[in-house]
């Protein structure tokens, strides 16, 4: 792609990540949520993949780094589920922002999301899912992009060279 596209794609990817994060954070009271926000964040990375290609991409698409971030999301989800299991008796039980009395009052009041229904752990579940989807969809596009590199060698699933 041209230098102009590359110059625009990278800053725009930050704006798209911002949109995605905002969608994740409002997921419990507005349309959106973890999956949608994660997909919007992934679109920022996908834009850079399309403009720069896989090799010169400003995103670090190494297996180690991506699996680390995706595992972080999965771990957060499991931890929140286990807190519900231990405190409420069932997996992913909504224990609220005061997680079994462990969270200090100041932090609790700070993380208490401003909504009428007190969503409890739902925003944090959205964050965990958003991070997972961000990496998952980016990985999927990397796979598609890498496969299309070899698509010209095949006609009707038969190798021509």
């Amino acid at each position: 792609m041209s230098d102009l596209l590359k110059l625009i794609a990278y800053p725009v990817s930050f704006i798209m990540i911002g949109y995605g994060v905002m969608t994740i954070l409002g997921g419990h009271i507005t349309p959106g949520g973890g999956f949608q926000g994660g997909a919007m964040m992934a679109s920022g990375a996908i834009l850079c993949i399309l403009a720069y290609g896989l090799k010169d991409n400003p995103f670090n698409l190494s297996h180690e780094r991506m699996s680390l971030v995706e595992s972080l999301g999965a771990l957060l989800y499991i931890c929140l589920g286990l807190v519900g299991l231990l405190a409420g008796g069932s997996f992913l039980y909504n224990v609220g922002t005061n997680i079994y009395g462990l969270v200090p009052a100041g932090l609790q009041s700070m993380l208490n999301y401003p909504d009428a229904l007190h969503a409890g752990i739902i925003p944090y579940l959205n964050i965990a899912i958003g991070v997972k989807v961000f990496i998952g969809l980016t990985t999927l596009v990397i796979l598609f992009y890498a496969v299309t590199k070899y698509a010209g060698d095949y006609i009707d699933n038969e190798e021509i060279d």
Partner: protein
Amino acid sequence: MVLETTVPFLQSVGPNLFGLFYTGPTICALIIGLIAGAIMHKTPTDGIKLNTSSWIAIIIGAILVAFWLGSFPYYGGLNLGPGFVAAVIGAIIGRGILGTKVKV
């Protein structure tokens, strides 16, 4: 020591910082931005180098977009999407702190 001083402050501030924006979502946005910035390269990859003024321009652009968005999704306080701005700033900081250097 830090906890002793910060916790009473946070208790006094509460979820809505001086009536301007909600602190919880803003901090969460900053953390997600940091995570997103962690999977970026610190050094330029393809000859495209963004200097300090470019990053300031990106942040100003983000503030403009946040202003047009309004105080989504909590509809209170400052007419600005603090989560949006915090996410962009978090991604830039995360790229600077946790980003990797490209091996040439």
